[in-house]
């Protein structure tokens, strides 16, 4: 029962490994970015799960509610999401630049076209 009860941690595990697998295996740089984003999402879910208090409501002052979830991880992740958008944009911009230089977003082809080697 406890294993099923902690299902969001299983989802975190699954997403994290999916993202890591995509980052390692894929040779396409765009797909690598997508893998990185999946990995990032798993970290978001991990932190938000930690912030949840059993039986707690959203941390908004209201009559009759005393227990509320920890807002600190949520705020932290709000910032992380914004940073994630910025890093994704930076990564895509680098890929655009690489594509205009090497004519491909595939790692193998980039290595082939690299004049240094």
């Amino acid at each position, binding site marked *: 029962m406890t294993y099923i009860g902690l299902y969001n941690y299983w989802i975190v595990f699954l997403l994290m490994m999916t993202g890591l697998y995509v980052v390692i295996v894929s040779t396409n740089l765009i797909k690598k970015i997508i893998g990185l984003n999946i990995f990032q999402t798993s970290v978001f879910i991990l932190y938000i799960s930690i912030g949840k208090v059993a039986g707690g409501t959203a941390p*908004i002052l209201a009559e009759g509610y005393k227990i509320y979830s920890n807002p600190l991880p949520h705020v932290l992740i*709000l910032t992380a*999401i*914004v940073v994630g*958008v910025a890093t994704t*944009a930076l990564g895509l*911009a680098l890929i*655009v630049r690489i594509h*205009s230089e090497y004519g491909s977003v595939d790692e193998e082809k980039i290595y082939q076209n690299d004049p240094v080697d």
Partner: protein
Amino acid sequence: MEHHIVLRVVAKSFIPVILLFALYVQFHGDYGPGGGFQAGVIFGSGIILYALIFGLQTTKKVLPQSIIHHMTGIGVLLYAGIGVLSLIRGGNFLDYSVLGATPAAGQHIGIMLIELGVGVTVAFVMVSLFYSFAGYRQKDLDDPAAEDDDEQDSIEKSDQQ
């Protein structure tokens, strides 16, 4: 996208609602879930939807690049300005309590303006990112004849790749 009449009609009716919802999330963030980040992204996505349906050139007529760059700065300036204003009024940096007649009123004014600054910056940074990527042309690889084509063309081209 001229021939996609369903997309155009649906987008036309949805974009005002999306922008209105962004303002709701922005200003209701005081009392409920919401705030500048979310509202900014929703507002930005409304404008991006407009750009996807009606083309980048049309959107640049509605929202010129210079306005976007200025608004991005104005948001940050609003945020920092509130901090400096609270310093001038005798509090700490970003201490909202000194902004109003009572501390509670000051907190209301402070958080509203701070979130407005965040929202404006996030919204226009999102649009700015979209403009940069959608407006990017590959001058080396494209043939010179494609130079005069509509920007819409390059978006569709990148979709197919």
